[in-house]
C-alpha cells in the first residue's frame, strides 16, 4: 500500500470523527506548544545572557566591598543608589589595583571603578548621571562598542585632560540624537569635553548606559569619594583564574592589614551556576511537557479506539481480501502518528509565532527557534503517537474477517 494512499485514507477516516480528532490534535498542539515555547524561551534567554557577557566573565575577577554583599544589600534599592552608597563605605582603593597589578603576574589588567550619582548639564539640558572614574584599561575588561569618538586614553591621564565618555542613555538625555563628541558637559563644576559615546550595552547587574566616564584621578579630584566601588581584574588565562584569585586576595588583605572588608567574585562561577539553573529549568520543562504529552496521548488513544471500533467492518473486509496484520497495524499507527505529528507541528508553529511576537515587544530577548527544539517536539510527538497508537492498532489487528461479516 503506497504511503500517500495510506495517508489519504487516514485523513478520510479521521475526518469522520472531526470533533474528537480536533480535540486530540489540540491536546498535542498544546503539549508541543508548551515544550517548544519554553525550550525556545530558555534557549533565547541563555543566548541573550551569553551575548551580553560577550567574553566578560571568563577571565575576570571582581573585587567588591564586603558590605555590599553582607549588610547593605537590599532588594528595594536600585543599583545606582546601591553603588553610590557602597563607594562611600568601600575600603578598596586605587592603590589596591596598582599593587595587585604589580605583584600578581597573571593579572594583565587591574581596573578600579568608582561612581556617584550627580547631575550633568550642557547649559540647555541637565540630567542625572552616574559620574564614574576609571582607567583606560576599562575597555580590556568590558567590550563596549563606541557609537562616536574614542575611549579614555593614557594622554588623558597624563595631561589630566577634562575628557569624558558618555553612556548611551546619558548622551541621549543630554544631546538627543545629535552628535555629542566635541561638545561640553559640566559635571561637579568642571566643563568636560565629550571624547566618546558608547553604544547601548546590557549586562545583568551592571549599568553602562547612564554613566559618564572620566579618568580616575580626575574623579577623585572632583568628588569626596576616596574608595573604589569595584576593582576588575583581568587574568591572562581562564586556567589561572583560581591561582590568581588566591594571590589577589593575599595582596589586598595584606594591604588592608587583614581586614576582610571585601569579596572576590568570579563571574565565571556565576555563569556556571546559571548553566546549572538552566539545566534544572529545562528538566522541569521537559517533565511538565511530558505529562502534557501523556494527556495528549490519551486523547489520541481515545479517538483511535473509537475509530477502530467503528471500523471493525472495514478492517475485517481488508483482512478478508488479503490485508496482513502489519498492513492493518501500519494503517492505524499512521493515523495516530498523523494526529500526533500534525498537532505537534502546529504547536511548534504557534510557539514560533508567539516567540516572534515576544521578541517584537521585548527587543532585548532574541527570538530564535533552534532546530533541536523542533526536533525534540517532533520526537516527543512521534513517541506519543506510537505508544498511544499501539494499543488501538493491536486491537485492529485482532479483528478477524468473520467479525466483520457478522458486524451490523
Amino acid at each position, binding site marked *: 500500500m503506497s504511503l500517500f494512499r495510506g495517508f489519504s485514507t487516514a485523513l478520510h477516516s479521521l475526518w469522520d470523527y472531526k470533533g474528537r480528532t480536533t480535540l486530540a490534535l489540540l491536546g498535542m498542539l498544546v503539549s508541543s506548544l508548551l515544550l517548544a515555547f519554553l525550550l525556545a524561551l530558555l534557549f533565547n534567554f541563555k543566548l541573550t545572557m551569553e551575548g551580553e557577557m560577550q567574553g566578560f566573565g571568563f577571565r575576570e575577577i571582581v573585587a567588591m566591598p564586603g558590605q555590599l554583599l553582607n549588610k547593605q544589600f537590599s532588594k528595594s534599592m536600585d543599583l545606582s543608589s546601591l553603588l553610590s552608597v557602597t563607594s562611600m563605605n568601600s575600603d578598596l582603593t586605587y592603590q589596591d589595583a596598582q599593587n595587585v597589578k604589580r605583584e600578581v603576574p597573571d593579572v594583565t589588567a587591574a581596573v578600579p571603578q568608582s561612581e556617584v550619582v550627580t547631575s550633568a548639564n550642557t547649559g540647555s539640558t541637565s540630567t542625572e548621571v552616574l559620574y564614574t572614574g576609571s582607567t583606560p584599561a576599562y575597555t580590556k575588561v568590558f567590550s563596549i562598542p563606541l557609537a562616536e569618538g574614542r575611549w579614555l586614553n593614557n594622554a588623558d591621564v597624563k595631561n589630566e585632560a577634562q575628557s569624558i565618555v558618555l553612556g548611551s542613555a546619558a548622551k541621549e538625555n543630554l544631546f538627543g540624537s545629535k552628535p555629542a563628541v566635541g561638545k561640553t558637559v559640566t559635571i561637579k563644576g568642571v566643563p568636560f569635553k565629550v571624547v566618546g559615546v558608547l553604544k547601548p550595552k546590557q549586562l545583568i547587574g551592571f549599568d553602562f548606559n547612564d554613566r559618564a566616564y572620566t579618568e580616575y584621578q580626575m574623579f577623585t579630584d572632583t568628588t569626596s569619594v576616596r574608595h573604589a566601588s569595584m576593582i576588575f581584574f583581568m587574568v591572562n588565562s581562564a586556567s589561572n583564574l583560581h591561582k590568581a584569585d588566591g594571590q589577589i586576595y593575599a595582596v589586598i588583605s595584606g594591604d588592608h592589614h587583614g581586614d576582610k572588608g571585601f569579596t572576590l567574585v568570579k563571574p565565571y562561577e556565576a555563569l556556571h551556576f546559571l548553566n546549572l539553573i538552566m539545566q534544572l529549568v529545562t528538566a522541569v520543562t521537559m517533565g511538565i511537557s511530558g505529562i502534557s504529552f501523556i494527556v495528549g496521548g490519551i486523547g489520541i488513544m481515545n479517538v483511535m479506539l473509537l475509530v477502530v471500533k467503528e471500523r471493525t467492518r472495514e478492517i475485517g473486509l481488508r483482512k478478508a*481480501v488479503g490485508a496482513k*496484520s502489519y498492513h492493518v497495524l501500519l494503517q492505524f499507527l499512521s493515523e495516530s502518528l498523523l494526529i500526533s505529528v500534525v498537532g505537534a507541528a502546529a504547536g511548534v508553529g504557534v510557539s514560533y509565532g508567539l516567540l516572534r511576537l515576544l521578541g517584537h515587544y521585548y527587543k532585548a530577548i532574541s527570538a530564535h527557534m533552534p532546530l533541536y527544539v523542533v526536533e525534540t517536539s517532533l520526537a516527543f510527538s512521534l513517541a506519543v503517537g506510537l505508544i498511544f497508537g499501539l494499543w488501538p492498532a493491536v486491537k485492529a489487528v485482532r479483528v478477524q474477517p468473520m467479525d466483520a461479516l457478522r458486524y451490523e
Partner: protein
Amino acid sequence: MISLSHVTKTIADGRLKQRIVDDVSLSIDEGEFLAIVGPSGSGKSTLLNILGLLDKPTQGEYQFGGESVLGLSGGRLATFRNRRIGFVFQSFMLMPRMTVLQNVELPLLYAPIGRRARRDRAREVLDQVGMLTKQKRTSLHLSGGEKQRVAIARALVNNPKLILADEPTGNLDEESKRAVLDIFLRLRQQNRTIVMVTHDAEAARIADRYLTIRGGRIASEAIRSDEGARVPVAVGIETDEEAREGAPS
C-alpha cells in the same frame, strides 16, 4: 482442485454445543460451477466461509490445489485469499465512502502490483460487470443491483482460481438479478471454478452441480443434464422449494 473431508464446525451457543457444519465431505473440480442450496440457518454461509478460508472448521481436512490449508498462519492465509479466492459476500461489504473504483481496487492494495496496473485491472473488471461508467461514484448511493455488481467486480479483480458467492441474487429485483446471473453465466463460460450459495431456483439452474444442505449436512447432490434439468446423484432430486419445505421450523 478442492476437497473437504469430514469437515465439522461446532459452536458453543451459551452452554449448548451446536454443529452448524456437520461432517461435510466435498470435492470440487477445476472449472466446475457448484450451487449450494438449503433452508435458512442450515449452514450454507458457514460452509462457504470455510471454503473461503475466512472461518476455520473445528474438525476435518481442507486441501486446496493439493495443499493442506488449515494449518497456514494468518499471514499466509491472507496471502492465499488475496491470490486465489474471490469472495462475494452475502451483504455487499462495500466501503460506503470509497468510490466504486477504490472498492474494486481494494484487494490489489495487498498484492504486488503497481498503481497504474492496479487501476487498469480494476477498470477492466468494472467493464466486465457493466459498471465502468460509475467508477467515480461513491458506493453509498448505488442501487442494490449496482452494489452487487461492484462487489462481484471486486471478487474478480485478483483473477482468482476460486470464486465464492453468497446469495449474489438475494434481495435483488428481477432485472438486477438477470444482470448478475448473466455475469455468472459468462464466468461459467470462462471455465472458472465457482461456488454459489443461493435460495433462488433460477440461479441454481445455471450451475453444473447442485448441493442441498440441511442441518449442516449434505442432504442431496445432483448434476445438470444437457437439457438443463437436474439429475440426482446420490439421494434424490430436490428443488429449492422442497428443500425449504423440508426444513425444520
